Structures are given as structure tokens and as C-alpha cells.
């Protein structure tokens, strides 16, 4: 697979549209998740107030992160958790590599973490001869295949059972099978051995609780429980935005997140972890560390509109609901964070100039906003980013990408033409003259659609002549 980057979205998407296997998988997955979500949400009579509550809690934390983050750190340290900080991806990787090598770690078991994907941690570990082993089944499949996840919740959504079976035969030498139970059993056996030998477990965190200094992780497979309890050293890597105020606040999020993500009323496991084992304990890691990552997040706090992107709880509902994602899938976005949420987060984290296409990769249909459990107004953010690009204002810490000349000139001309009846009439003539030439946007339109010809007599012509009632 060619490397896909956000700035090649158009080419990535075109390639994805040609991939029938991928599109079949996407239709099935997004359709199924959409139906399950709808059914799960209907069970909750107070869904809308619940979303509003969750939105408010997130905004409260983000707007006062200068208070909540230190509170989390203070309480975590009180529990014996060692807290590290990283300004960017490179620094974060260095912290992790240093911690691992100082302890002579050879093998790291990892549970699914978007944040470690964001900082490309696996590559950094491998460079230092530390072997990272992904343990979420989907992530492990992706790792064996040398690919990247295409969905937040189901990383290997783009792979068929047959492809997984072939991969397993090639990489771990199992006999050919098309039984997903057998494939899963093989994965369990292979990974159990890796868990048993690992010296370090690396996880993400879904929430970090300021009141208690705890982190909370949700999962279905049990690999997070293994990652955080078997190795003697557990490190959680999380963005600074993951804080919620109190343990009691978790209830709303626990009702929202699984229903939005997989349509479950609750995932199989939630682990609330608050530090290493104490004297007399016979289990639990001896060391628990937390790495807090900024990597562009703090500057997003500057405005309410951009701040709300940090409220995301990574449920994936907006991906499933997005008609663009449904067609092109996650890889096309060329980013760790795909779909509508990726289209707003990636340009803010990596810089507008590196992902300038993504804010435009949406028809602004608003389906994402409708399903978001924390009410992030993704269309508002898409419009905001488009404005910051088109106006040349940019974002803090980001270069401004240029827009195509034709577009800039086009809108200048359009704005001139739409001001006043006389110019408007000239524009109409121009349009009627230009449309049949099939150039520029007209050509793009007419490749697969007929274009309704501009009217010879406009509405205002009809009005001027007088509109009679037919009968």
C-alpha cells in the first residue's frame, strides 16, 4: 500500500472508490454500527439531556484545564503514579523509549491507543530494539499486515476474514481456515505467550479523573486488563484533554460511549486504575506511570469553537454516520484520526498546511453532529477551518495553505456579480455562455451527472412579466 497522507486525500479517496472489497466492508460495518447505535440510544429516554450534560462537563474541564490538569496530576502522584509530560510526538517517544531502555525492556505489550498511533510510538520503540506487540485483535492484525487502522473502533474493518486467514497462515503459520472463532483462538494463544513474557504494558486512557488521580479504560477483549495487570511496569499515554472532574461524572460517559461506539449498553470491561501495587499486594504492576501529551492540544483551547474538538471521546459514531467515510473509509484521510472528527482534529494537530484538504472533505450534511455523544458541532468546525484557510488567518502554530487561484478569483467575481440586479443579469448571461463549454467545475460536474442548463428566462424575468394563476 502506498503511504497515504492527508494532503493526498483526493487521490486516496479515488483509489478507495475503486476497491470493491473495501466498499463492501464499509457498507456492512457502518450500516450495522449505525443500526445498533440507533437501537441502543432508543433505550435511553433521556439521551438528549445526557449528551448535553456530557458536553457541559467537557467544556467545564477544557475551559478550566489550568485547574483540572494539575489537580489530576497531584492526586495521581499521591497514589504513587509517576507523571511525565511531553510537548510533542518526538518528546513523547523519547520519554517512553528512555523508560523502557532504563528498565531493560525487550517486549512491550500494547493495548489499542490512538494517542500512541498519533506519536508513532511503535516505530520509535523498534528503532531502539524494543518490540511493541499490539494486543487488541484488530490492531494486531493490522500490525502483522504492516498497515494502519482504518476505523477508530474496528481497526481492521477493511480486511475480510479470508485476508486475515491468509495473513495468519503466512505470519504465524496456522493451517488455512475460514472460521473466525479459530482465528481468534490462534490469536489468543500467540498473544498469551507475549503477555507472559512482556516487561512493560503500554495503554492509552479513555478518561482521567481529576478528583482521584485515576485513569479509566474501556474495552471488550480483556487485553487492556492484561496489559495493565500482568507486566511489572504499566505506562498510560494520554492527551491532556482526557480529564473529567469526578468519578461520579463517569456515569454519563459510560452510558454514552459504548452505545455510540458499538451499540452496547456497556463494554465488557471498565478498569479504573489508581496506581501501583502496595506492600502486601501479590498482583498489579509494581510501577505505574502516566505520560501527558500536548502535541498541539493546548493551543486548541484558545477559542470555544476549536476547544470543542478536544471534547471527543473517540467513540467512532461520526465515522459510521458520515456519508463520505461510508464511501472512502479511514485510510483515505491519511491520518490516525479519520472521518469527520479526523477532518477537524488532524489539521489542528498537524498544522493546516499539512491537512488542508480535510476540512473540505465533507458535504456538511451534519450527520456527525447529530450522533456525537458530546455534541461537538463538527460542521461548525469545518466551516471555521475553511474560513481560516480561505481568509489567510490560519491557526496558532500553523502555516496557512493557499487556496486554488481559480477558487479565489471565482468567489471574488461571484461576490461582484451578486451585488445588485444589473451585475447579476450580466452574470446570468456569462453563466449561460460558459456552461456549455464544460470547463472547470462544469466539467467536474458533468463527468457522471447531467447539468441542468441555465434558464433562458430567469425567475426575475418571469416576475417582471407578471405571474398569473394558471386557472
Amino acid at each position, binding site marked *: 500500500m502506498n503511504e497515504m497522507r492527508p494532503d493526498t486525500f483526493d487521490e486516496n479517496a479515488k483509489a478507495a472508490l475503486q476497491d470493491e472489497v473495501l466498499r463492501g466492508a464499509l457498507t456492512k460495518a457502518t450500516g450495522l454500527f449505525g443500526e445498533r447505535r440507533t437501537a441502543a440510544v432508543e433505550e435511553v429516554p433521556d439521551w438528549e439531556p445526557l449528551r448535553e450534560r456530557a458536553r457541559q462537563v467537557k467544556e467545564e474541564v477544557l475551559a478550566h484545564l489550568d485547574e483540572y490538569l494539575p489537580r489530576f496530576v497531584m492526586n495521581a502522584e499521591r497514589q504513587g503514579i509517576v507523571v511525565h509530560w511531553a510537548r510533542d510526538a518526538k518528546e513523547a517517544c523519547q520519554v517512553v523509549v528512555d523508560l523502557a531502555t532504563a528498565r531493560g525492556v525487550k517486549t512491550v505489550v500494547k493495548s489499542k491507543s490512538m494517542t500512541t498511533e498519533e506519536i508513532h510510538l511503535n516505530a520509535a520503540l523498534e528503532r531502539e530494539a524494543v518490540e511493541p506487540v499490539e494486543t487488541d485483535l484488530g490492531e494486531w492484525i493490522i500490525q502483522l499486515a504492516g498497515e494502519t487502522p482504518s476505523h477508530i473502533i474496528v481497526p481492521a474493518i477493511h480486511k475480510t476474514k479470508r485476508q486475515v486467514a491468509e495473513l495468519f497462515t503466512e505470519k504465524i503459520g496456522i493451517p488455512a481456515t475460514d472460521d473466525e472463532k479459530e482465528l481468534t483462538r490462534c490469536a489468543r494463544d500467540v498473544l498469551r505467550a507475549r503477555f507472559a513474557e512482556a516487561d512493560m504494558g503500554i495503554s492509552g486512557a479513555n478518561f482521567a479523573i481529576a478528583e482521584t488521580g485515576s485513569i479509566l479504560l474501556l474495552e471488550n477483549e480483556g487485553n487492556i486488563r492484561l496489559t495493565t495487570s500482568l507486566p511489572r511496569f504499566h505506562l498510560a499515554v494520554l492527551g491532556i484533554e482526557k480529564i473529567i472532574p469526578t468519578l461520579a461524572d463517569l456515569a454519563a460517559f459510560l452510558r454514552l460511549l459504548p452505545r455510540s461506539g458499538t451499540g452496547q449498553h456497556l463494554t465488557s470491561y471498565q478498569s479504573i486504575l489508581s496506581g501501583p501495587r502496595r506492600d502486601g499486594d501479590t498482583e498489579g504492576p509494581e510501577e505505574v506511570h502516566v505520560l501527558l501529551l500536548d502535541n498541539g492540544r493546548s493551543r486548541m483551547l484558545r477559542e470555544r469553537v476549536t476547544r470543542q474538538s478536544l471534547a471527543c471521546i473517540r467513540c467512532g459514531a461520526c465515522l459510521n454516520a458520515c456519508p463520505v467515510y461510508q464511501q472512502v473509509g479511514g485510510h483515505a484521510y491519511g491520518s490516525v484520526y479519520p472521518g469527520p472528527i479526523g477532518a477537524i482534529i488532524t489539521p489542528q494537530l498537524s498544522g493546516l498546511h499539512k491537512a488542508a484538504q480535510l476540512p473540505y472533505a465533507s458535504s456538511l450534511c451534519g450527520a456527525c453532529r447529530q450522533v456525537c455523544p458530546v455534541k461537538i458541532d463538527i460542521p461548525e468546525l469545518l466551516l471555521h477551518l475553511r474560513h481560516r484557510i480561505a481568509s489567510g488567518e490560519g491557526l496558532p502554530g500553523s502555516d496557512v495553505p493557499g487556496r486554488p487561484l481559480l477558487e479565489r478569483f471565482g468567489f471574488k467575481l461571484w461576490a461582484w456579480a451578486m451585488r*445588485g440586479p444589473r451585475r447579476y443579469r450580466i452574470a446570468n448571461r456569462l453563466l449561460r455562455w460558459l456552461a456549455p463549454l464544460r470547463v472547470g467545475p462544469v466539467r467536474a460536474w458533468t463527468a457522471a451527472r447531467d447539468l441542468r442548463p441555465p434558464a433562458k428566462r430567469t425567475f426575475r424575468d418571469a416576475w417582471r412579466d407578471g405571474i398569473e394563476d394558471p386557472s
Partner: protein
Amino acid sequence: MRVALFPTCLVDQFWPSVGVATVRVLRRVGCEVMFDEQLTCCGQPAFNTGYREEAARVAGPVVDRLDAMGVDAVVVPSGSCGAMFRHLTEVFPSGPRADRARAVASMTHELSSFLVDVLGRTDVGGRFDGRVTWHDGCHGLRELSIHSAPRRLIADVEGAELVEMGSADSCCGFGGTFSVKYPEISVAMLDAKLEKLPNADVRAVVSGDVSCLMQIGGRLSRLGSPVKALHLAELLAGSEGAS
């Protein structure tokens, strides 16, 4: 009631029969319809592409004119442009135009919502022979919460039968400049939607937005489908439109 018709630039330039039909329907329910040649475009194409300054330059005179017309309501035969009037407060965040934009936004209604929610009318005397299906325009549906109004209006059109296609609320893929920036994705989205278009003999896909209808109709026409794209106003006026 004195209403100003904001026909939208697309209706005016591409589908004037929708404007004419809207005038007839509004008159039929007892409205005095006003129009002014200054009413060109709400600024949405520029706003949605990020060009807020250009959007302001175009929408400014429209806001001023609508405010000065002294009407009781502004009616727009488009959910998308209707929703744009709400965004005008972002285009004009401060200054004298901010107040005018707010005032105009609060009296602006999409056609179906105006008929049903403001006037309380569902039977406006339309006639149509055959089955039709409805496409929810995204902005009307998700920004203006328009869902039942057009369905109730269609139900009361003599001879018309509404058959839901099962994908009424999925996006048609138009999305303004999106449709020409990413034409392949745009058409793929539309085809996914149209897959569910019932094979039953639906004569037309009806919608409240000419933008969606140009997308849907353009594709149906290219595929050689006999199914027509029809604006709600045309259905309600009883004239099937000159497409």
C-alpha cells in the same frame, strides 16, 4: 400576510419554475407576495467554502433590502438557504447589520415549514397523479428540523402517494462546492442513496432544495432513469414543472 419571496440564486438561474410555483402556492393560501430584484443570493456558496468576507458582501444588501421591505415573513423555497439565514449572525457578528441580520433571520422560513408550522396549512390544493418519494435536504432536516411538514403537505396533495425510500435522510452528495471538488465521492454518495430508491413505480423524487434536485436529477438523467426530480413547490402548485 405580506411575505417576501427569496427565490434563491439557483432557482432563479436554473429552475425558475420553482419560484413561479412558490408564488402561486403562497397566493393560494392568501399571502401577498413581494419580490425585489436586489434579492440575489444568501451568500452560502462563499460562506461554506470559507470566504466569509465575500459572503458578507453579497448577503449585506440582501439583509438590508429584506429588512426594509416591511414584510411579515420571508419565505425561501430551500432548506439550505433557509439555514444560511441563521448563519448570517456569524457573517455579521456586530454592527448595525448584526441587528438587521438577526431580525431577518427570525422572520425567514423554509417553504414547507412556513405553510405548515406558521400558517397551519397542509392542504394547499395541489394535484399530482402518482407515487413520489421524499428526499430530506440535510440542512433543512438537521439545522431547521424540517421532517414532518413536507410529508404532511405531500399527503394532502390530491392523487399523490408518498413512498419512503428508506434512505430519505442520507445526504445526496451535493454539498455545494464539494460536488465539484470531489465529484467521484459526491456521485458515490448519491448512488448509495439511490440504491434504495424503490423500484416501485415512483414517478418523482421530491425535495425542498433545488441544489439536491440538480444533483439527484442530473444523475437520474445520466442513468436514463424515467424518475424525475421535482421540487415540493412544483408538486404543491399542481404543475409538474418543465424539466
